[in-house]
């Protein structure tokens, strides 16, 4: 009874997340998140299954090789989604000081508290894992050409294998993050872990989200690329372990099918595919063993680290005093002298810089933006990432467009992040001290975004561009990138009349339509800008100057347009009610 109550309490604590409003309806959040998970996985599995149904005469060998790509996709997706869940729940994965202060004084043995927390975490993980993998498992038999006589037993084996393997892969993804978190805490101690926790969480978010975005592109030709011969990469890639496990469990269903002579044009391809698949059998078995052992080892590691960290209940964080260094003084001087001109601008500038890195929700949005941008770069540039381009006129558009794409993703992430209040209940600070000059405050926020997020990114990109394009082109590209970011920042905040980081979050309406339109428009603009830039670079310095002046002119135009539509003083609207995310039927009357 007592344990059940504690588990319930800890389950409710998962809703007390920075991403979730304290006033939100929990059932509504559950339905939106659960529905979203099931719908997304159902959509993907239907899409992949359709391919087989449109190709009903595909022989078993080709189907097997194709099927490995799909298994790789589902296993990796399950792993990444569950790992992302663990990263999203990051602070709620372990007992914290508040749990200790509330439960520590009650006559409940520490072991009961720790066990209950563990059960709550496991329940959330298992439920999400099951919700995500339900549709692909049920749709597994649909992803087999109708003409292949797999029978009822074969269908059941395939379904069961898909379910077991993807669930295990999901568990592995979740446990890997949990093991990393708890293992690090055990090694460096609670205090030191707190110091690096935020950075680690943000880094994991970038890596995992990038992985998820790149997954569709990297799930093709898995057999030929990875499984044709055993290499270090094959042994080191966790999704392949679980693909091996799947083939060991259910690979024989398709492999044992009678080989009838296919159409002539498929004859060679089918023979090669069958040989390719069959030569991998020893490897599948070895990988399967690695999958099982890795799951066992990570489970043991996680449990051991959790138990070690739970030797005593956590104490409140003793925050280290921030040292007032000479560099801080210099930085403040630069901001006051060169980057901002008014007090309200400075308020917007500093408050943005203080909020974005310190608040989990804001970090998540920024990291997501960076992850999307990174994925876009990898997708567009690919092998040209390190190819030196000697001739300006022949620089691929993709290489030049990569910077704008990355900047677009980051600036969009920034725009989303400043829509969220830093701490809504403390926004009364703004109500009391607000002087109504939204334009100045917004200007400070924009400058903070450019200085703290765009410029460092451009500096890193400059190093890459200088190496592959030469210093002269890299400098021009840097200037174009800066002007493009300023223009994008200015355009994205045209007509923005809420107070960034203070007003309540109101989700954008009609995001599905506008989102697609926005992404398409950005892709076109980035490609067009890259083409114009390449043309200008090839034509000579005068054209480059004209391009930069034109960009600055457009920025000024957008600014003037925005100012002409703004009022001199803007009243605060801190608690605007958002539209409900779900339709209510109000059946209760």
């Amino acid at each position, binding site marked *: 009874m007592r344990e059940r109550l504690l588990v319930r309490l800890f389950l409710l604590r998962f809703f007390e997340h920075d991403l979730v409003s304290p006033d939100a309806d929990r059932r509504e959040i559950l339905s939106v998140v659960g529905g979203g998970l099931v719908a997304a996985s159902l959509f993907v599995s239907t899409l992949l299954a359709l391919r087989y149904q449109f190709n009903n005469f595909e022989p078993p060998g080709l189907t097997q090789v194709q099927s490995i790509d799909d298994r790789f996709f589902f296993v990796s997706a399950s792993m990444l989604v569950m790992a992302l869940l663990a990263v999203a729940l990051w602070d709620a994965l372990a007992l914290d000081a508040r749990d200790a202060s509330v439960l520590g004084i009650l006559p409940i043995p520490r072991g009961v508290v720790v066990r209950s927390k563990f059960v709550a975490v496991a329940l959330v993980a298992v439920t999400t894992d099951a919700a995500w993998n339900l549709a692909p498992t049920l749709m597994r038999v649909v992803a087999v050409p109708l003409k292949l006589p797999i029978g009822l037993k074969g269908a059941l084996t395939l379904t069961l294998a898909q379910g077991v393997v993807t669930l295990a892969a999901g568990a592995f993804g979740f446990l890997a993050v949990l093991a990393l978190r708890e293992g690090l805490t055990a090694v460096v101690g609670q205090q030191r872990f707190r110091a690096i926790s935020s950075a680690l969480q943000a880094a994991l978010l970038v890596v995992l989200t990038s992985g998820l975005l790149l997954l569709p592109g990297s799930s093709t030709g898995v057999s030929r690329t990875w499984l044709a011969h055993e290499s270090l990469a094959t042994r080191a890639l966790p999704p392949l372990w679980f693909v091996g496990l799947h083939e060991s469990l259910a690979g024989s269903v398709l492999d044992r099918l009678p080989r009838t002579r296919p159409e002539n044009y498929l004859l060679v391809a089918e023979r090669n595919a069958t040989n390719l698949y069959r030569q991998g059998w020893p490897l599948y078995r070895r990988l399967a063993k690695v999958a099982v052992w890795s799951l066992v080892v990570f489970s043991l590691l996680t449990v051991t680290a959790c138990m070690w960290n739970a030797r005593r209940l956590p104490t409140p964080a*003793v925050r280290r005093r921030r040292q007032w260094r000479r560099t801080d003084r210099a930085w403040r001087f630069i901001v006051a002298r060169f980057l901002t001109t008014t*007090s309200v601008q400075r*308020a917007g500038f500093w*408050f943005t810089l203080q909020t974005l890195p310190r608040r989990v929700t804001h970090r998540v949005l920024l990291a997501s933006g960076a992850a999307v941008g990174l994925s876009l770069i990898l997708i567009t540039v690919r092998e040209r990432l390190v190819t030196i381009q000697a001739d300006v006129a022949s620089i691929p558009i993709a290489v030049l467009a990569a910077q704008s794409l990355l900047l677009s993703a980051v600036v969009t992430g920034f725009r989303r992040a400043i829509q969220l209040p*830093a*701490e809504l209940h403390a926004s*009364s*600070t703004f109500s009391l001290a607000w002087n109504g000059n939204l334009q100045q405050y917004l200007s400070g926020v924009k400058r903070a975004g450019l200085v703290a997020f765009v410029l460092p990114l451009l500096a890193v990109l400059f190093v890459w561009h200088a190496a592959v394009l030469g210093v002269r082109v890299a400098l021009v590209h840097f200037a174009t990138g800066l002007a493009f970011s300023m223009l994008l920042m200015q355009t994205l905040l045209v007509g923005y009349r809420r107070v960034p980081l203070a007003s309540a979050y109101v989700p954008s309406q009609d995001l599905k339509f506008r989102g697609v339109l926005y992404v398409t428009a950005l892709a076109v603009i980035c490609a067009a800008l890259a083409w114009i830039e390449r043309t200008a670079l090839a034509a000579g310095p005068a054209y480059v100057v004209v391009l930069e002046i034109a960009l600055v002119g457009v920025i000024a135009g957008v600014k003037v347009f925005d100012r002409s539509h703004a009022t001199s003083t803007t009243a605060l609207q801190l608690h605007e009610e958002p539209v409900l995310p779900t339709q209510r039927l109000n059946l209760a009357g």
Partner: protein
Amino acid sequence: MLEARHLVKRFFGVTVVNDVSFQLHRGEVVGYLGPNGSGKSTTAKMLTGLLDTSGGTVFFEGHDIARDPIRFRQRIGYVPEEAILYSFQSAIEYLELVGQLRELEPALLGKKIGALLELFGLSHAANRDIASYSKGMKQRVMLIAALLHDPDVLILDEPDSGLDVTTTLVLRQLVRVLARRGKAVLYSSHVLELVEKACDRVLVIHQGRLVADGTVAALQRVVTGGSLEEVFSQLVRSDDPERTAADIADVVVGHA
């Protein structure tokens, strides 16, 4: 200077403040007393314009504050009953944010923050995250934030909550000194002794209605009682405290 005229506030049909009227003059410290849930904080929020009224009007220097709330708030300082600050900021960062939003001159702001942190005994923790502050420390940060811009009107809603004895004594003297320098102060508190010593006039609110408005001496003449505590008890008390205490003790030790 500040006038509440027939203020009414209803939440979901329940009247929390009912026809409250009073004036606050320059150089005056007015105590605002009432039991928990009597409507003190709601009145304070309406006076600052943070909460819309259901009826009645607040005037500042003869003008309705709803007409130009931004200009009005530039002239007031407010300490809410609960110190709600940005937990991820340090005290310095928070005070700088407030000062910058209020457009204080940077050099003056820096000087004021440094001096006030020192005087309120917070300089040792000025660079620490507010999340690690005690209730009293947060309250002191709120007090500094309310004073930074040299307001004409101070509305203090239980500012002594969580403060140590020394700071409470300083606060008592501070409101007197500020009043002598022409400020108007509304001081809501549960510490009757402090109100008795610091305030020129006392307002007593009970169940949303103003039940008394006058100097402590005047109230003592009207209601038969010695100290302000006795006067207050007679005005708002509904139960015998001794009897209630005995009943609580009975419940605590009872096993049935």
